[in-house]
């Protein structure tokens, strides 16, 4: 593609159209651009449009975004052995783009610049530094000649993003070579610009317009400092440590009212810079304590002072958390004695910890307005950078050396908070919130094993005097925040609450399910769900009998909660439903629950939006189905009647997200049926073989499972309906790919298990052909293993002679070759108990036929593999599968397949009669040796000594001898 007036005009037009509100022209333009992007030179042309001042601003912006995406998807060179539909940018054009992009980025307005800068960062991830030697020198020279801070900050922004990799890669020689290259090139200019800008900051205290970009520049310098120092302390930085620390100190103590933000939500440039400085000194404190030691007391004072003045505004959150983090690091370090003094400890706790732990108006607002986010932070651990969490981390840090003092102090604070609350509950409820928060957060993070408690307060006392009264309150809607706190407390320490007490509280918990507050009813659902999941040993603590008295209100309120505003798709509630349905003795409630769930299902089908809610919804259906039909298989018809219409909607309207679930549940239904199966199933069978369905990766596991269920329940119908060819077509397609070949074998194995040899035999040559072609051209360990397992299964079902004959019908003597070259060498890699038994048994069955066909020279090798398979532990013989999956099949957006645990499939043993393969081996060989007297000599020759000894032991154990 060439840059001409004509192309500029056409493409500009296109970009304009991509902004259209109408979907038709927009799609058209997008398609046009997609095709144009395949042409060589497209990237360069777009970049030129981005820089063209005569083009309208919005077109240039759209072009910049397009350019970034172009780079993102087409810069990487795909692996040569993988065919990909995306045409990547060719090397000569890449060189052109690399040569031009820095200048483009520096000369464009901010909005465009950020896109180009991102594109540059993506390019650098692939090429920098080795394949892009000009980048760093170009940035450095631009930096030295730049005078205005738009340019300078653009360069630093870029440098910052390309150096970020040093923050997350493990040490390696290669990484260090790259790091050294960057250090050699950038250390000196970085310090220069940092110091130069420092002078500007100092000289312009009254000019915010100058100060702001200068301070942004300093922040970027600090972030680059962080990246370059992340792996270890480089020589240059150690030598100039005084320069850097001196500047850092200046900025930590810098104040300038002119730069303050009026909006409490916004972070000022100064605070941003201070936070970056805190991160840097924290890094040094963590890793380079010795070199940093000389500056420690100064910085401790600085940070201390800073925390005394920092406000509770959200705009200062980041500063507060990074500053607290620094003190936390010091408290855990060898210099913890800085805080040893009781007065210091007290001041830290009272002036820094407590104020930051107290609930703020913002948190209350979140509780009311955005319960999802509130729960995420309060309960799900997404609070890593909140003040509350960091303040608690500080307490834990202090406790590592001063546990007794700190515990004593906090016990005191908690008591006095509770007294405050008691004095005037309506006024001082925040004190109680803070107390509960501290008890929960300062305890070790709990898991269901409940190994950790709290040593901050007397648990029983606290629970009975503070938590139980909240839970027992009649009005579930009064002071919701404290209710949520109490529920969270119960959930956290659930294993320590005695069973009888929990059951006593159950009606209250059920009551909270319909509290108005979304947080409260979510927490109530969570609490019930977690309680029901507690296990004492292998048994759940709360059995179906415990639940029976509460089922009626429980179901009423659970489904009631799903009708409350903003909780129609509440995943906590749905998960609780799933849990109850899998434990409870649902009896009479089954139909009612099914009705409710089906209604919800029909509703969410229209617009699936909450994946985790939907997942639990299907889990709940599966749990209900399992629970109900296990006791009364007759109920399956009810399920079919209610569910099929919804399933039909899913399939007809192509609700891609749900199809994988639908197939799993249909399989579950079908598996519950006894043959003959109702005709409805057979009617929809042809539709399930439509190639379109199988093209979607996410459908495949569920469809395979469903297909297996059909083959199991209605093999004759399928065979008589002449649908076996199509089924085997599906098998052929799946087995052709490295990713799905095991799925293909699942189908094939089921076919072989459920059909007579007469029905199978016409297809066998073609089946072997497909398998051997794949074996010849694209074999993998996984494939070979699956092949051996299939052949063994076929053999134990239909006899060894059939295996030999059908394989040899493909090509004379092929069986011997396969056995010798493929089967025997790979036999020892088989894993899984059932599979190991199957393969060893069938291999032993081959011994007699081998003698009969005068192929006894293979017997020694074969039995040696069998013995290894049986004697050696799996982990010593099975190699890790190093096969690379086919990337082209994985790439691109696909709905995800999620396994439904409640619809889990049971594994079946095809050799139930044979309990012990070792016994089978010993007895079979003994039998053969009666007829073929040289067997013993052959085995002596062919078996490794250890295997021979083991075989002797087998024979001894089962009282047989080898001729």
């Amino acid at each position: 593609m060439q840059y001409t007036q004509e192309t500029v005009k056409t493409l500009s037009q296109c970009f304009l159209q991509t902004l259209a509100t109408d979907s038709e022209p927009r799609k058209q333009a997008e398609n046009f651009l997609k095709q144009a992007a395949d042409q060589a030179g497209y990237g360069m042309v777009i970049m030129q449009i981005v820089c063209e001042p005569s083009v309208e601003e919005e077109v240039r912006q759209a072009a910049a975004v397009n350019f970034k995406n172009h780079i993102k998807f087409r810069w990487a060179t795909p692996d040569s052995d993988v065919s990909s539909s995306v045409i990547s940018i060719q090397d000569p054009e890449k060189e052109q783009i690399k040569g031009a992009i820095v200048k483009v980025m520096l000369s464009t307005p901010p909005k465009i610049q950020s896109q180009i800068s991102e594109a540059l960062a993506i390019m650098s991830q692939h090429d920098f530094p080795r394949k892009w030697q000009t980048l760093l020198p170009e940035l450095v020279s631009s930096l030295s000649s730049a005078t205005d801070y738009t340019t300078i900050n653009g360069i630093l922004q870029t440098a910052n993003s390309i150096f970020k990799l040093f923050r997350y890669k493990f040490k390696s020689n290669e990484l260090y070579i790259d790091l050294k290259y960057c250090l050699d090139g950038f250390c000196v200019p970085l310090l220069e610009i940092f110091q130069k800008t420092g002078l500007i900051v100092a000289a312009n205290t009254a000019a915010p317009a100058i100060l702001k970009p200068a301070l942004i520049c300093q922040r970027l310098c600090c972030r680059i400092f962080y990246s370059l120092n992340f792996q270890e302390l480089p020589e240059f930085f150690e030598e100039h440590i005084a320069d850097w620390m001196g500047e850092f100190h200046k900025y930590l103590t810098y104040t300038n009212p002119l730069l303050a933000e009026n909006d409490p939500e916004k972070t000022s440039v100064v605070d941003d810079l201070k936070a970056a400085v805190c991160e840097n000194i924290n890094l040094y404190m963590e890793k380079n304590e010795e070199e940093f030691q000389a500056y420690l007391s100064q910085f401790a004072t600085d940070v201390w002072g800073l925390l005394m003045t920092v406000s509770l505004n959200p705009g200062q959150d980041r500063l507060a958390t990074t500053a607290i983090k620094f003190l936390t690091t010091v408290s855990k370090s060898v210099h913890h004695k800085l805080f040893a003094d009781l007065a210091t400890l007290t001041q830290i706790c009272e002036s820094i910890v407590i104020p930051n732990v107290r609930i703020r108006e913002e948190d209350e607002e979140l509780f009311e307005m955005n319960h999802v986010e509130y729960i995420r932070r309060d309960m799900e651990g997404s609070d890593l950078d909140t003040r509350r969490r960091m303040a608690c981390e500080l307490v834990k840090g202090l406790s590592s050396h001063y546990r007794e003092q700190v515990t004593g102090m906090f016990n005191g604070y908690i008591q006095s908070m509770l007294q405050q609350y008691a004095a005037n509950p309506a006024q001082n409820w925040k004190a109680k919130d803070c107390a509960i928060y501290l008890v929960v957060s300062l305890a070790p993070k709990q898991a269901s094993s409940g190994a950790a408690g709290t040593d901050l307060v007397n648990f029983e006392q606290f629970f009975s005097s503070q938590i139980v009264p909240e839970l027992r309150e009649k009005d579930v809607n009064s002071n919701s925040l404290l209710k949520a706190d109490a529920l969270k407390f119960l959930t956290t320490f659930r294993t320590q609450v005695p069973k009888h007490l929990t059951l006593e509280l159950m009606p209250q918990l059920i009551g909270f399910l319909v509290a108005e507050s979304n947080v409260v009813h979510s927490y109530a659902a969570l609490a019930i769900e977690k309680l029901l999941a507690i296990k004492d040993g292998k048994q759940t603590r709360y059995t179906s009998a415990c639940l029976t008295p509460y089922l009626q209100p429980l179901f009423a309120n659970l489904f009631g909660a799903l009708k409350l505003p903003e909780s129609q798709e509440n995943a906590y509630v749905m998960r609780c439903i799933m849990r109850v349905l899998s434990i409870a003795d649902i009896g009479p409630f089954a139909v009612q629950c099914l009705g409710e769930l089906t209604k919800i299902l029909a509703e969410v089908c229209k617009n699936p939006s909450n994946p985790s809610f939907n997942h639990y919804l299907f889990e709940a259906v599966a749990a209900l189905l399992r629970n109900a039909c296990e006791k009364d298989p007759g109920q399956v018809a009810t399920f079919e009647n209610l569910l099929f219409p919804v399933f039909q909607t899913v399939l007809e309207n192509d609700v891609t997200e749900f199809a994988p679930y639908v197939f799993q549940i249909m399989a579950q239904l079908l598996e519950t049926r006894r043959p003959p199966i109702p005709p409805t199933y057979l009617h929809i069978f042809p539709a399930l073989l439509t190639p379109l369905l199988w093209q979607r990766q996410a459908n495949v596991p569920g469809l395979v499972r469903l297909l297996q269920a059909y083959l199991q329940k209605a093999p004759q119908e399928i065979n008589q309906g002449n649908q076996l060819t199509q089924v085997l077509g599906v098998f052929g397609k799946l087995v052709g790919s490295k990713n799905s070949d095991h799925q293909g074998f699942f189908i094939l194995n089921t076919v072989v298990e459920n059909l007579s040899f007469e029905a199978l035999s016409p297809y066998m040559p073609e089946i072997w052909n497909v398998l051997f072609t794949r074996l010849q051209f694209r074999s993998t360990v996984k494939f070979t293993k699956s092949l051996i397992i299939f052949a063994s299964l076929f053999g134990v079902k239909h006899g060894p002679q059939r295996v030999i004959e059908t394989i040899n019908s493909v090509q004379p003597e092929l069986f011997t070759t396969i056995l010798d070259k493929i089967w025997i060498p790979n036999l020892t890699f088989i894993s899984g108990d059932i599979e190991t038994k199957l393969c060893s048994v069938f291999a032993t069955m081959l011994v007699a036929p081998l003698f009969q066909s005068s192929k006894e020279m293979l017997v020694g090798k074969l039995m040696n593999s069998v013995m290894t398979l049986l004697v050696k532990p799996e982990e010593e013989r099975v190699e890790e599968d190093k096969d690379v999956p086919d990337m082209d099949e994985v790439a691109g957006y696909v709905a995800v397949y999620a396994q439904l645990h409640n619809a889990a499939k049971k594994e079946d043993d095809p050799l139930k009669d044979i309990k012990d393969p070792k016994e089978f081996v010993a007895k079979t060989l003994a039998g053969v040796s009666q007829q073929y007297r040289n067997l013993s000599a052959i085995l002596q020759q062919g078996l490794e000594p250890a295997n021979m000894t083991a075989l002797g032991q087998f024979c001894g154990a089962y009282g047989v001898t080898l001729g």
Partner: protein
Amino acid sequence: MMNHGGDGPAATNLRRDPFKTSVGKGAGQRRRQAAITIGKDRRDSVVRAKRLRRADPADHGDGDAMQLAAVAADDDVAYKLLEDSTAAAVLNLKNIGKKATPKKVEALQTLRRLLSCSAYPPVHVAVQAGVVPLLVDCLGFGASEDQLFEAAWCLTNIASGDPEQTRAVEPALPLLILHLGEKNPARVVEQCAWALGNVAGEAEDLRDWLLRQGALSALARNLSSPIITLVRTAAWALSNLIKGPNSRAATELMKMDGIVDTLVRLVSNGDDELVVEVAWVLVYVTSMSDLHSSQLIHAGLLPPLVARLAVSHHQPLLTPVLRTIGNIVASDNSKCDAVLAAGQSLPGGINGALARILETEHRTLQKEAAWVVSNLAAGSILHKRAVFNGGAVSPLLYLLATSTFDVRKEAAYALGNLCVAPRDQGEEGKPILEHLNVLVDRGCLMGFIALVKSPDLESARLGLQFLELVMRALPDGKGPKLVEKLDGIAAMEELQFHANEELRIMSNMLIDQYFGEDYGLEEEFVSGDARTQYGPEYPPWRRGGLAA
């Protein structure tokens, strides 16, 4: 019906592959010092790569210069005077011309005094005044011993300056090398070696240049000299010359006839100060090739070297001795055997010697010693037992609990290695329960959890690996409970969104595996308990056996 064929892709990809790095591969490994350094060379703080020669103890004629220097240190005016005197001395030397030996020696002496009287002598002035060509002239054939000595001294101090000053002496290098020959008086040879040592300490291209000019063998031959100071200086200069990163020089050195025996003899007989320099030669030699180590071991290096480790209190000596031993044990098990054997005649053996150093208050020594222990502990099961019973465990536990980050990290590697079976027995990642139990009982878990929270990626990984080991290996599901009690869940959760993919996947896996939600159905979905059916070493997710 069954689904034969074992692991579906989901099982393989999600459950096993990303977790390849179990403790067996991480902790159970030997580690060499990084080949590329970006940090400051730690040797610098102990022994400077370039050395100035200050006053000659035999020389009492330094009067003026000494006085000048005494005030010059903190007085700009006096320093200006020193600079002026230096310029004048160079001019004086120039004016004397090519002949007139006695006067010339005197002029050289004056200059030399000016260049050695202060920690920061005015070499820049001398170089600017054109001193180098004059000094090259003084090194010519037929010059007197005094003249050669004084000129070489001047060059030594010039070469001890900034990089550009060091490079300024380049024209003198061929002659300096030439005067290293054994026919020359020892003090001249030593001074020339000193000057060359300074040049070699500067940069790799200069080292290459010196190598091409034959400096290596000329210096090395002087190791056999009976004069101790000369041997010391020659050894120091050699250590600078072979320090790499290219291994060519070290290899060339080791090919010289008799050098191996000479080095061993010096370690056996030399005084502390001499052994310091020789040991640095050994550090570089052993770091570059295992073959070198074998040669030295064969020649009997280890007994005298280990003996030094056991008794010396001289920190500058202990550093290179430790590092040499560390390099040797970073190689194969047979070399570890040799090191252990060499310590047998000592009370407490090598492990006792290492424990002694771990118990010093010296941080860099502790770190080096812990590194050596970690490499010994990465060896065979016998090595692990020897370390475990050898007295190093207590100090290591103490360091893990209390020390600074870099020492803690090394101690953690050592302790971690003690708990995993060797890799070469096909039992990768298999725990050594008798060690693990003891270490956990003595409270090491806390230290590893602290590492999980470290911003250092390798430390975080090591911490996670150890947690994995504890949760997997301790009997009766004790591991997860201990981890939970010590707030390990919170520590792992901090990594769940880490930018490093491996840490992210590992932490998510471990939390899922040991603390995750179960659906409460089949036994196989029960976290923790499920692993018992395969024996404690192989939790099902590692075999890809859990989910369908």
